[in-house]
């Protein structure tokens, strides 16, 4: 066994199938998409690709729909991080401290995650329908709050926010599970000794649990960012990017450009730009969190020094 571990050829041989799949189905399409973003093609077999240089990118820079899609996705990322993660980890903490019925609540909270996105989108679409046909408006009317009734998915002030919050509702469960798993891996002795030392629940969460599950929080942030940047299904099911492009995100705009309007070059350019944005945001967020890591590590070392001097 030991000799297998040292034999690089064997290691490479074992890695090869996964590597091939990754290259063929991930790397090559990404490079192809990058290549196609410099061309235009009407979608007819036999018609050659026409080289257009940076025209597709220039068209996007001047396209108000694309600007709105980018603004929407950045808002989506921001609100996604500010809601999915805190809500997920908050419920994880609640479940961690729940002595009775933990399994039951875990299952209940996980239900939105089990539902297909299409079903979730349709469900909320019915809830948010305008006028009395929508459950929410109906409820508001019955509570005497008619002035709050609106066309939730057509009103420019509420449409995008509704989609973001529905996505939070559907995704937070995932972070409950990640959070709970991370918390369960914290040795009981540490929490018990903190309790003996007089730390209350709040202090235990902030000073012990959060630092000890920091790696999970980091992974969750990256997952939210990458997940939200490529969001398509929820937006498509709920609004298809409408009305009038109000709720477009890059993925739905890409779909419209490439598959509805036959602008394959522009579609490829959107995917290239999104790839770059995803890469930058992910690297920046990881850098920021790694800095936090280093700071806390330095503080910890500083703390130890002081303790030793004393």
């Amino acid at each position: 066994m030991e000799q297998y571990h040292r034999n690089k050829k064997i290691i490479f041989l074992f890695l090869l199938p996964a590597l091939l799949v990754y290259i063929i189905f991930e790397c090559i399409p990404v490079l192809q998409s990058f290549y196609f973003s410099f061309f235009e093609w009407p979608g007819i077999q036999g018609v050659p690709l026409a080289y257009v240089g940076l025209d597709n990118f220039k068209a996007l820079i001047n396209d108000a729909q694309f600007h709105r899609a980018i603004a929407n996705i950045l808002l989506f990322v921001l609100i996604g991080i500010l809601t999915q993660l805190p809500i997920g980890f908050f419920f994880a903490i609640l479940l961690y401290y729940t002595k009775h019925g933990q399994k039951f609540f875990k299952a209940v909270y996980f239900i939105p995650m089990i539902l297909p996105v299409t079903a979730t989108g349709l469900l909320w679409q019915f809830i948010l329908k305008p006028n009395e046909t929508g459950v929410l408006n109906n409820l508001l009317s019955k509570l005497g709050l008619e002035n709050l009734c609106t066309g939730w998915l057509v009103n420019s002030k509420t449409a995008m926010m509704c989609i973001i919050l529905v996505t939070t509702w559907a995704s937070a469960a995932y972070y409950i599970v990640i959070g709970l798993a991370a918390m369960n891996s914290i040795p009981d002795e540490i929490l018990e000794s903190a309790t003996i030392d007089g730390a209350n629940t709040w202090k235990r969460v902030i000073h012990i649990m959060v630092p000890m599950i920091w790696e999970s929080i980091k992974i969750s942030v990256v997952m939210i960012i990458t997940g939200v940047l490529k969001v398509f299904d929820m937006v498509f099911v709920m609004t298809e990017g409408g009305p009038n492009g109000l709720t477009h995100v890059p993925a739905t705009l890409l779909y419209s450009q490439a598959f509805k309007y036959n602008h394959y070059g522009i579609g490829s350019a959107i995917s290239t730009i999104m790839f770059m944005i995803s890469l930058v945001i992910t690297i920046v967020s990881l850098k920021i969190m790694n800095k936090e890591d280093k700071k806390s590590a330095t503080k910890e070392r500083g703390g130890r020094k002081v303790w030793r001097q004393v």
Partner: protein
Amino acid sequence: MKRKIIAVLLTACLSIGLLAGCGNNASETDDSQVKSEPSATTETADTSAAKEPEVTITVLTRYAGSDVQAQWLQTMMEKFSELHPNVTFQDDSVADEAAYNNKLKTAIATGNLPNMWMQYGAASLVEYAKNGLAMDLSSLLEDTEFTLGLADPTLSSYNLSNYGVDGIYALPFAMQPEVIFYNKDLFAQAGIDKVPETMEDLIAAFDKLNAAGITPMGMGAKDTWRLGHFYNCIVYKKAGVENIKKIGSREAKWTDENIVETLEILKSFKDRGAFEENFEGIDWSTENANFLSGKYAMICVPLWFIPTAEASEIADSLDFFQIPYFEDAIEYKDNSAVYTDAHVYNGKLEGYEKEITLEWAKFTHSAYSEEVRLKVCNQLPGRSDINTDGYEMSPLMEKALVLNNELTTYGGDVFEYDEITSMQDVIRNSLVGMMLGTSPEDTARSIQAEIDNNQ
């Protein structure tokens, strides 16, 4: 023992279900009312079977599933196979628009074209014609017996000469004028004793209906084609079909004063309370259901709605009237929005397969075919020479036939005259955007920008 009995019973139920499912074939439709006999114009079945090669005709349409014309297609394929036993059909039809578009696009991108497919609008045909994907059907014009009965005997709807392409590349089919269906009871309730003839009458009717607490018109604008269709009616009656065609050929612009005025009119309808609040979030199925439950006084929809109206519980209260004209644009009084499906045939075909596909094209646009559509599917026929003997037509259908024969100047959806494929979405979405607050001027500018950016 008990388990065995249950198993036998379940198997029997399953078998009966399967048999019932197989037995209820769509092709076994009640075409007993169709009096004419189908005929092959080339050879009879007996002789053709002996020497003609086996051919499979692939058909890609939206006449599938619950579409009423699915029965028509099944019947036509069955009858054609009887006349040409060497012909078999592969029906790839799918009712859903997005699924249909995806199938067609894949076929075009991969070169696996069906023998026949459906087409909406002339402009998007240009690329297909230029690249040899669509068959030139000009030869059909020589068969006057065939063309004379057509609603468009010169096949002008699909003439591409404006786009620099000679020839005819699509056969128009199933002409459906847009009209306004209305609820007679609700009109009476609001004190409207005469159907609106002019747009001014229509606006007066809106006011009366609103005063009576009745929503004047249903508009499920979440499905953007709803508002798009209504706009087609306004723009043709106010600015004329030719002016929209001129935008397609770049002789006019969306920002031209007369076009902006049509957008202002559409917006003013909302401001006048023609539609219910938040209608931008309501879909067609809700609009349809609300109209048929007596919630709206009117809906603007093509005549394919007749079977639905006649099957509803309030059928006796329903009728339709032509789109009113503008008193100050009387010259466009006869301009109408009329939608046609069109059939396109594979331009790559050669030899016998091309010959038999052309035969199929004529067969599906013949008087017999239209008779089947009327009598089996209750759909408005696209020919004037069909045999209606012994067929008791409903009052609505009779009225529709008269209307169809009176049509003189008509246009399809406004985007159909534009080669830019995104125009359908851009125009319809912009109209919804205008209803949500964008000014008519900005709406015109954003539509025109799409054209300018794609030049």
